[in-house]
């Protein structure tokens, strides 16, 4: 019989910080998947002789924001260290990182899971510089090496600030791992330090995995899976590793502590380096950079400037009467939440509810955006305009169908709902005497339908309703039609009984 195992998982996240310039030089941080190779480099990030790093204070600020959002203790004394190894994407032959004295320690993040809230501890957050990128081309490339296999080095990314976030091994399911990773992703985006664009490699995951029999608290040898560059790779890779290790224990084998790679094509992990062959990075304090003193008063300032974080927002939206699902949809994208928040602040003078705004935003507005391939950033309808439109619908000035049409026009032109309603004469007919006269005329013009109705074909009431609405060009207030029509028909029914 197969035993049941509990996975023990720790997550490492490498997030590029989207500062204007690199970590230790003045080069621009650019989208390295788009930029022409080796155009955003200088003698410093190329590791040329005699060049020295200078710390980008903005990167420390961005890192501090993340550390605070993860409830970490920002350390007053920071030391950069050299991590030594040879690779062509590492121009200096060492990466400037932090080792003994990182930016922040001892944080935590609460993650919502199907089993309730779970707290994942954050071990450390530290700053370092990214490496360049290698592209292997078989048979040469346009620039040369015809017929040969070559490795092309692009150092645009070399020196981009990188934040490493390391969790404690507090994660015991792939579900929690995914929720944790997603929440970290959202936080990075909310803090405006990272685009969250996973396809561009601006966030990379590594998961440390071991398994043990359920109920046991031993720590078995773990493997570290590198290069997990999407949520899917993270979950698949981790699941694969859990299954692989469990199978080994099922057969009374032993798991070797080693570094694994993730083969996206085969959806398998593969061994890269064993512990015995592990790199000795020979860390030592970077002598070119004095220790960084971080003033607690400055940290307090940064803390005060932190935006509302996704978890808090989610809570607040639910308090406003939104379902957890709807709130989740709004919170998922910082831009959506920002739009929604602006709409909320336009609600004050209206009787429009937060829930209506959420429904219109995630329903009609999203549908229009999707259909046109646009996003909120270039949406012409301002949050206040959307609220005004909803107010017109809910206040009865226009009906829901007109409302949808008006939104479409607003979406195209950026005009206000009021202006469109006035110009197109869309204001709803709520004049009950006009509606009553229309009904009387209609009944008089359709004696057969009336007879059938009176004979018991009640569904004809619906037909009359449609005819009235049609006569009034679809702009009549359906509630008023309904009331007047019911009264008119009841009256005829009574007359028929009386006579």
């Amino acid at each position: 019989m197969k035993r049941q195992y509990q996975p023990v998982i720790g997550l490492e996240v490498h997030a590029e910080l989207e500062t204007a310039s690199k970590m230790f030089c003045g080069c621009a941080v650019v989208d390295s998947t788009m930029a022409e190779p080796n155009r955003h480099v200088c003698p410093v990030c190329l590791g040329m002789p005699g060049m020295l790093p200078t710390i980008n204070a903005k990167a420390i600020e961005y890192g501090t924001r993340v550390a605070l959002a993860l409830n970490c203790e920002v350390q007053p004394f920071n030391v950069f260290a050299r991590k030594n190894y040879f690779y062509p994407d590492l121009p200096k032959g060492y990466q400037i990182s932090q080792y003994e004295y990182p930016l922040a320690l001892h944080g935590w993040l609460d993650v919502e899971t199907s089993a309730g809230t779970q707290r994942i501890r954050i071990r450390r957050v530290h700053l370092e510089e990214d490496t360049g990128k290698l592209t292997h081309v078989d048979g040469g490339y346009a620039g040369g090496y015809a017929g040969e296999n070559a490795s092309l080095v692009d150092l645009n990314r070399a020196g981009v600030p990188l934040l490493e976030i390391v969790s404690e091994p507090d994660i015991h399911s792939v579900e929690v791992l995914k929720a944790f990773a997603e929440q970290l992703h959202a936080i990075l985006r909310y803090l405006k330090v990272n685009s969250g664009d996973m396809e561009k490699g601006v966030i990379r995951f590594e998961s440390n995995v071991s398994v043990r029999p359920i109920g046991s608290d031993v720590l078995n040898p773990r493997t570290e899976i590198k290069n997990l560059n999407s949520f899917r790779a993270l979950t698949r890779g981790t699941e694969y590793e859990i299954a692989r290790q469990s199978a080994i224990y099922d057969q009374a084998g032993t798991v070797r502590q080693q570094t694994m790679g993730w083969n996206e094509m085969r959806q398998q992990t593969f061994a890269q380096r064993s512990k015995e062959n592990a790199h000795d990075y020979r860390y030592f304090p970077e002598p070119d950079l004095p220790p960084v003193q971080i003033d607690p008063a400055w940290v307090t300032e940064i803390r005060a400037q932190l935006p509302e974080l996704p978890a808090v927002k989610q809570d607040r939206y639910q308090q406003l009467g939104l379902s957890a699902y709807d709130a989740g949809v709004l919170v998922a994208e910082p831009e959506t939440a920002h739009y929604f928040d602006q709409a909320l602040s336009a609600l004050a003078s209206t009787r429009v509810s937060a829930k209506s705004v959420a429904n219109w935003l995630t329903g009609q507005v999203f549908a229009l955006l999707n259909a046109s391939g646009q996003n909120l950033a270039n949406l012409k309808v301002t949050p206040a305009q959307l609220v005004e439109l909803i107010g017109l619908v809910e206040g009865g000035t226009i009906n829901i169908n007109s409302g949808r049409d008006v939104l479409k026009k607003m979406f195209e032109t950026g005009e206000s709902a009021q202006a469109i309603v006035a110009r197109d004469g869309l204001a709803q007919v709520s004049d009950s005497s006009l509606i009553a006269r229309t009904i009387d005329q209609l009944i008089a013009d359709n004696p057969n339908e009336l007879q059938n109705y009176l004979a018991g074909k009640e569904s004809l009431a619906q037909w009359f309703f449609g005819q009235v609405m049609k006569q009034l060009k679809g702009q009549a207030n359906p509630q008023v039609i309904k009331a007047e029509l019911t009264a008119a028909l009841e009256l005829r029914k009574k007359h028929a009984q009386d006579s």
Partner: protein
Amino acid sequence: MMSNTSLIQLSLSQASQALRQGETSSVALTEAVLSQISQADGRLQAFLHVSAEQALAQATSADQARQAGGTHHPLLGIPLAIKDILCLQGMPATAGSRILQGYRPVYDATAVTRLRQAGAVFVGKTNTDEFAMGSSTENSAYQVTRNPHDLERVPGGSSGGSAVAVAAHMAFGALGTDTGGSVRQPASLCGVVGFKPSYGRVSRWGVIAFASSLDQVGPIGRTVDDVALLFSTIAGHDPLDSTTAPNPVPDFTHGVSALPDLTGVRVGVPRQYFIEGIQPEVEAAVRRAIEHMRALGATLVDVDLPHTEYALPTYYIIAPAEASANLARYDGVRFGSRQAETDLWALYEQSRGLGFGAEVKRRIMLGTYTLSAGYYDAYYLKAQQVRTLIKRDFEQAFQQVDVMACPTAPTTAFKLGSKTNDPLQMYLEDIFTLPASLAGVPAISLPCETDSQGLPIGLQLIGSAFGEARLLPIAKTFELTYQN
């Protein structure tokens, strides 16, 4: 007009004055040193690169600037030599190493920029031990530089080329770098003045790194005024080097004011610097120099620097450790010489294997070892702790004294090849210069006497951290009053 021969005899400050008074021109000075280089450097081999054309062009514009009137920096139009460890845009930078053959930096070192802004003329790049690792300049991959006082002897090192350029009148002043004595010791062996400022005084931007926490650019000249002028020009905070200090730099651009005498000056005599193994003539000469200071009114104080004996091992752990990382960038991938392109590890091993000389490899291996897992605490960390103790020795001593006086080197210039097979003997050359480097304090080597073979002996005066304003006037007073 003065003849070439008389022009090159001028000190830097005298040449500057001659220019100011219209007695000569920058072109004449430059032509004079270029002519001296072509006559003497075939024997001396001080220069790795001479840029006659560029130098004359600079000299011409300096003369034009002077004719245009106004006030000028005293270095305007002065021909200087630069150690080939500092980057200078438009000239090769080899660091004395095969691995940088053909490399031309696209940037100036900050020290060079500041000289350039002052209007100095650069005649060329001088020879050095490979990556400044050595005490005789014999570790250069390119040539052996000879001591002008005896061609069979070393000039000291690693800034041997710069010391010889100044001693043999091939430049009016020069920049060297001093990591453990590399400015002071060759100055001592060549009979010129060599000054290592406090760590953090001069930017290391554009200085090809050997050991980052020790490397310091230092001037070499024929007088205290000359090195002080160069020091004041190149020193000062540089935003490109985070380890430079914000402290204001004393202004010696118009010379150092000598003291009337040394009354009230407390001169420390560290007992650990007069040890077994020191060449007797050196000890005797330095003791006479110290006596001279007493005669000028100085109070001599016996000082104790108890951790001196650990300076050498401490240095030979810290410097190679930093060097092992600093030299990792020479991998054949982006610049310099590359071997074997087919396989990455072959490329690394062969480029580095053929590109580096024996001493550099020795230190890379030493440094790699002491930083390795399991050894770091016992070596690197321990060495840093001892370094703190050495620093403290100096801090305590400077509570009692203004300067300390001791020999610069334990010997006068030794025979070429006599220590190349014995690295430890070679390392001992720096035994009196290493502690000031580890402590980061300023120190100057002044010629005092010559030994029985006519070889120069250097007196080292050590100041407190950032105490250049106290140290240099005392040095100048000694220089002016001491005749041997």
